[in-house]
């Protein structure tokens, strides 16, 4: 990995980029060029001018983003830019106040739904810090969750044979050992195991939109590759991904169609995978223009 480059935002936060060792994808660039012509009605997820605050502090300040089925969107940005807030707001975590804007998911008002309703509708958030839940068996939990989703969608529940079949297939695709099934949810898991358990759950639940919140943080290169493989195996024309990451490194393994830079609560730049390279080449000066109005105020 080439040396990283860093700069400071006007807010004083450090913004770090890795050089991208691979060539950018021309296919993604092509899709980018098509983007303005997209049918708006086809959007799976449509976030418009979203403002959110937590504990009296404005975090998201007019974020707009559209995601279609089959697309992979990477969202990069410095710590504190609002990346994790975006993930939490989309999944329905309490404690965030939406002051302006809207989010629709397959034409339904996502912000009006409880977390479990969003899950049943097909939203999945792979968390940055998966919670350890002693006493709750991983398999039991996952089966209850899957069947609760199916009930909510009016589908038939899976019996234990059908469920285990699905689980075993997923395990083998992800090269996971089945001791995962017998343990309590995330209890005593290493950082890498927790992240892999998130991707495993995602694979079993088969969401329409998967949001990966800094799934790469705290992973060594082998764990990172394993997680990326699991994600890539789930890519399909029906499924969209939002990959939130602080570092460019994950994008070497999960090739995004779009890269967005999130800074100071909104998306300030959108491009293909080559955007990270551009950031690398032009650095702070290049991105500062986009957040200059705020900087000028400061």
């Amino acid at each position, binding site marked *: 990995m080439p040396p990283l480059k860093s700069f400071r935002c006007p807010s004083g936060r450090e913004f770090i980029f890795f050089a991208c060792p691979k060539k950018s994808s021309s296919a993604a660039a092509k899709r980018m060029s098509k983007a303005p012509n997209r049918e708006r009605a086809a959007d799976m997820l449509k976030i418009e001018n979203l403002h959110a605050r937590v504990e009296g502090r404005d975090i998201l300040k007019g974020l707009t983003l559209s995601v279609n089925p089959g697309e992979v969107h990477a969202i990069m940005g410095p710590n504190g830019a609002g990346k994790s807030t975006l993930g939490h707001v989309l*999944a*329905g*975590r*309490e404690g965030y106040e939406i002051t302006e804007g809207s989010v629709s998911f397959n034409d339904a008002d996502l912000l009006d739904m*409880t*977390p*479990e309703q*969003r*899950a*049943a509708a097909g939203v*999945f*958030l792979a*968390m940055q810090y*998966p*919670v350890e*839940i*002693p*006493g*709750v068996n991983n398999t039991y*939990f*996952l089966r*209850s*969750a*899957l069947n*609760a*989703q199916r009930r*909510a969608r009016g589908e038939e529940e899976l019996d234990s044979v059908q469920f285990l079949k699905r689980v075993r297939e997923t395990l083998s695709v992800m090269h996971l050992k089945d001791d995962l099934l017998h343990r*309590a*949810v995330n209890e005593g898991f290493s950082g890498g195991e927790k992240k892999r358990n998130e991707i495993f*759950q995602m694979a079993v*639940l088969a969401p329409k939109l998967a949001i990966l919140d800094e799934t790469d943080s705290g992973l060594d290169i082998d764990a990172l590759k394993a997680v990326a493989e699991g994600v890539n195996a789930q890519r399909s024309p029906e499924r969209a991904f939002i990959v939130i990451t602080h570092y460019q490194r994950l994008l070497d393994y999960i090739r995004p169609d779009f890269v967005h830079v999130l800074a100071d609560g909104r998306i300030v730049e959108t491009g293909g995978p080559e955007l990270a390279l551009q950031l690398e080449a032009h650095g702070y000066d290049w991105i500062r223009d986009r957040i200059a109005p705020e900087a000028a105020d400061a």
Partner: protein
Amino acid sequence: MSALLESLAAGFEQLPHRDALGLGTARRESMDAALAGGLPTPRRERWKYTSLRALEQRRFVLPHQQDASDAEIDTVLPPAPRMVFVDGRFDAGRSDLSGLPDGVSLHALSAGLAGDDPRQVNVLGRRWNTDDAGFWRLNAALAVEGALLRIEQGVRVQPPLHLVFVTSARGQDLGIHLRHRLELREGAHATVVEHHLGHAGERPLLNSVCHVHLKPSTVLEHIRVQRAAAGASLIARTEAVLAKQATYRLLSLELGAALSRHELAIDLQGKGAHAEIRGLVRSRERQHVDTQLMLRHQLPQASSDTQWRAIAGGRSRIIFHGGILIDEGADGSDAALETRNLLLTDTAEIDAQPVLEIHADEVKASHGATIGQLDDRALFYLRSRGLPEAEARRLLVFAFCRSLLEGVSDTGLQAQLERVVKQSLLPDHAENDAEAVA
């Protein structure tokens, strides 16, 4: 004199078996002492959290003052061997002692009183001299029923022995006084399950004292499932005495009754004795559950391990006093006490009080207490995967207490207890209300 004492004193005059086996004088002395001393008040340290003022103003009739012929219960009874007591009387018809191995004697106290051998009922000889012993004095005066179990030397009983105490809603409020003895001779092993059951609409007073005598190298697994009527007032005392190398494993599930007070006095009187205490209290609405554990290490090398879990919802209150006393010279003692507590509503209250008193030099002793609410992050995690909120809450609450059931030796029994506990975790309306405003 309070209405409660007055009504019980009236019933005492016609008590059956009152003078049997020369116990008449002792019973009257106990009754007089109870009337003179009265019931404990919150001024006594041990009763600080539990007021009996409302209970004292109520009147109760004793079982013999009521016709027993029409008692109806809708309880599913556990498998044999079982002893069933309905409204404070032994019910031979509902009991089934088939499959009881040789070397096990299980009788009703009333049968012992009807016989001519005072040794059968020596359990009634216990005297209480402390000021706050009002209920135990009443028990000494009024108990003419109970279960007497003796397991002979070296006998290992496989199937759990079930003792079922059930009340049926009829007429006046009953005051039921029971006295039990569980005695294991040297090397004996057994599992005893106490079931306390009742029906809606009843408001009985249940006073029971259980004596556990464990001779050397015995193992008793004692499971207590308290699901008494929602209106019941239950005052219980369990006294266990452990000889050398004896093991006492108690699992107490406190799920029912309006007022439940359990005093648990455990004496490790022998070297290498071991007590394993597991307790789960689940309260709701306006329930009041007060447990007073007094565990005493008298001789060296004894060990005790206490794990207590309390889950309070509604406007209920749970008290747990976990007292461990290690006597001078009880070197090599190992005592661990942990109490974890979960408040489901803003209006519930839990008072947890671990107290260690150590007079020996070479001991290992630890205690810990935590009080908290359900983890918001865990709740969000489960919901974000699709579990409805109520189901996610139940899952987390069950996870909080399930480890207590892991030690149950009989797997069928363990599964049944899991079902009982899960059932008890279903939310009630008061909780929903309180949670909505939280």
